[in-house]
């Protein structure tokens, strides 16, 4: 008979076993239930990698698909200071590649951080050189960088985006919600060596790029406008200049040039003054170009006809204790001659015949004192007081383009209305928005704002404005072989020191359209503070001619004197 363990020893062993299992059970419950969430997250961190992707910013191209702005992935360089043995040596190696002073790099690399940016969005070539150096503790990630391959071309309209891809100015800002790419966080699986295997949900990995914009602008017309404007501003030693070319039938902007120019690829060192789009943010007193509006209103209201006789008071007329002057002594003249010779007295009398309320109605109808609602940021409404705030001289002053503040865009929009038979169109610069697959998301169609004057009035105005070129102040805007309709303007600026009209600071301008009988473009040229001769007919009209001639050639518009050639075809 064998003697087994005593009952007491059996109980002890059982107890020990139970305790052991109890501990294991407790541990299991702790790991699997109580700490489950925390440990699962820890495990995920070890074998999963979370990466944030941002889709590329959408492309911007001109009306013919020429690229004006696009994103390219370029390297950004970072350092891991905690893993560096000799920050000074690394900084010395990096300095000539990144073009940053060695001391500055060393200061960043000596920080008590595990990650510092050293240079963001550098050139691809710099990235290649850095790869060759193969420095420990220095790494690169790819980030999207905005490129404007045409440099300063159309910069004031395009604007620019910031380091983190957000639109800051111009179209980049106005259409930021369309242009910016989608942000998406993706989980990637890693193997034992830390290599990425493949993502969970493969289709979710690539974030959608931003939408692409197609503009109404033609890069060649834009180039012609910018080139001629730069030459004019340099030649006249002017402070700045603006040219807008618009398609009268649609309101599409073909070119919008502002001088001085800037390169949106390099804006860090510039001030907002440089990138402000003066075509729609700056107001000026238009001077005689406003006579186009008063004349159209007078014709529409039938208070004047082109043949109506107006007395020029021999160049001087007193209104409200102030004297209005003409640039020459004018006697009796027809209403057409008032416009041709740009008579201030004739315009003032026309305004007075119209009366405050009627004239004000036409000023509003032609779009003054309100935004044109162009799809660009920063547009101002200009300055147009209500008649109740007008002084005794205001009616006469506004008739000759004083006491009113307009933008170049408002002026070209007004003259384009006459070119379009009296119908005002809404100006716009973006014609299409497409997604990254090229599917059309939004098409901007020409939008009628209102009819301002009748087709008859518009036709009569065209004839009168042609007279400005053939027999008046705008002779230098004449384009051989084409009928041009237009008006010169020379406005004194307000001297900020005295608060009175300056005798040395002027704005010379010209606005018109061509060919007069079937306009292909309306254009305004504004030269701000030209030195020397400042007449609009002398500084702005020749620019209109040069731009107009080149653009008409480019568009393939036949001259009036062109002999029609019929191409013969022969069937064999």
């Amino acid at each position, binding site marked *: 008979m064998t003697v087994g363990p005593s009952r007491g020893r059996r109980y002890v062993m059982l107890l020990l076993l139970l305790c052991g299992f109890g501990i294991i059970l407790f541990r299991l419950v702790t790991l699997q239930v109580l700490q489950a969430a925390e440990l699962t997250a820890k495990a995920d961190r070890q074998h999963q990698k979370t990466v944030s992707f941002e889709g590329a910013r959408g492309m911007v191209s001109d009306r013919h698909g020429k690229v004006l702005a*696009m994103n390219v992935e370029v390297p950004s360089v970072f350092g891991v200071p905690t893993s560096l043995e000799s920050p000074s040596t690394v900084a010395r190696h990096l300095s000539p590649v990144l073009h940053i002073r060695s001391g500055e790099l060393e200061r960043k690399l000596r920080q008590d951080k595990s990650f510092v940016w050293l240079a963001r969005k550098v050139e691809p070539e710099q990235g290649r050189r850095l790869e060759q150096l193969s420095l420990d503790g220095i790494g690169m990630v790819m980030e999207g960088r905005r490129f404007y391959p045409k440099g300063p071309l159309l910069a004031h309209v395009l604007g620019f985006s910031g380091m983190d891809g957000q639109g800051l100015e111009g179209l980049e800002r106005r259409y930021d919600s369309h242009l910016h790419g989608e942000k998406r966080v993706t989980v990637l699986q890693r193997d034992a060596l830390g290599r990425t295997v493949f993502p969970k949900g493969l289709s979710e990995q690539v974030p959608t790029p931003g939408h692409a914009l197609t503009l109404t602008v033609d890069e060649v017309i834009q180039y012609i406008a910018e080139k001629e404007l730069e030459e004019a501003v340099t030649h006249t030693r002017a402070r700045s200049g603006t040219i807008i070319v618009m398609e009268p039938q649609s309101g599409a902007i073909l070119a919008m040039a502002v001088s001085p120019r800037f390169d949106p690829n390099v804006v860090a060192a510039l001030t907002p003054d440089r990138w402000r789009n003066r075509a729609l943010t700056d107001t000026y007193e238009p001077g005689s170009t406003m006579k186009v509006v008063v004349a159209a209103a007078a014709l529409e*209201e039938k208070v004047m006809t082109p043949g109506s006789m107006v007395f020029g008071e021999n160049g001087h007329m007193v209104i409200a204790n102030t004297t209005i002057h003409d640039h020459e002594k004018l006697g009796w003249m027809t209403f057409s001659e008032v416009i041709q010779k740009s008579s201030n007295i004739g315009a003032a009398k026309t305004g007075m015949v119209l009366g405050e309320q009627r004239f004000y*109605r036409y000023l509003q109808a032609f779009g003054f004192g309100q935004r044109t609602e162009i799809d660009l940021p920063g547009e101002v409404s200009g300055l147009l007081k209500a008649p109740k705030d007008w002084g005794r001289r205001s009616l006469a002053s506004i008739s000759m383009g004083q006491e009113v503040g307009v933008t170049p865009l408002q002026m070209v929009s007004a003259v384009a209305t006459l070119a379009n038979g009296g119908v005002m169109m809404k100006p716009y610069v973006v014609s299409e928005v497409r997604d990254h697959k090229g599917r059309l998301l939004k098409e901007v169609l020409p939008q009628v704002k209102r009819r301002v004057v009748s087709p008859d009035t518009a036709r009569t105005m065209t004839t009168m404005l042609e007279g400005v070129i053939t027999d008046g102040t705008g002779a230098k805007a004449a384009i051989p072989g084409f009928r041009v309709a237009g008006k010169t303007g020379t406005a004194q600026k307000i001297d900020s020191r005295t608060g009175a009209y300056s005798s040395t600071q002027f704005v010379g301008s010209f606005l018109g359209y061509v060919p007069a009988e079937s306009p292909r473009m309306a254009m305004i040229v504004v030269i701000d503070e030209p030195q020397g001769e400042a007449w609009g007919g002398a500084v702005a009209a020749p620019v209109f001619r040069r731009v107009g001639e080149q653009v008409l050639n480019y568009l393939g518009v036949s001259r009036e004197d*062109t002999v029609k050639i019929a191409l013969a075809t022969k069937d064999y």
Partner: protein
Amino acid sequence: MKKLTIVAGVMLVFVFVWERVDVVRLGYQIERLKVQKILLERERDQLQVKFSALTAPERIAKVATEKLGLVPPQQGQVLMVHQPGETPNLSVPPAEQIRLARHVPTGRVSE
């Protein structure tokens, strides 16, 4: 029959293992191709920017005038040739798009 079942079972295990291994192999291959695609797209974008910069009107005009000695056409040197019935490329909106204007009665401003 028994042997056949065992062989079939072993085969199934081999197919299963082979399939798992192949999934992982294809996963790596997909990753490599994706990286290659990204690199090619990056190169394409860089080339597109370069092409766009090289075809800028300003650069072309500079090369044409300074390098090739060309000059802009003078008056009378440009002759437009239109085939009978050909209309110029004017992007005037179609009639239906401006019908608003056409339906507005001719006359005075009604604002």
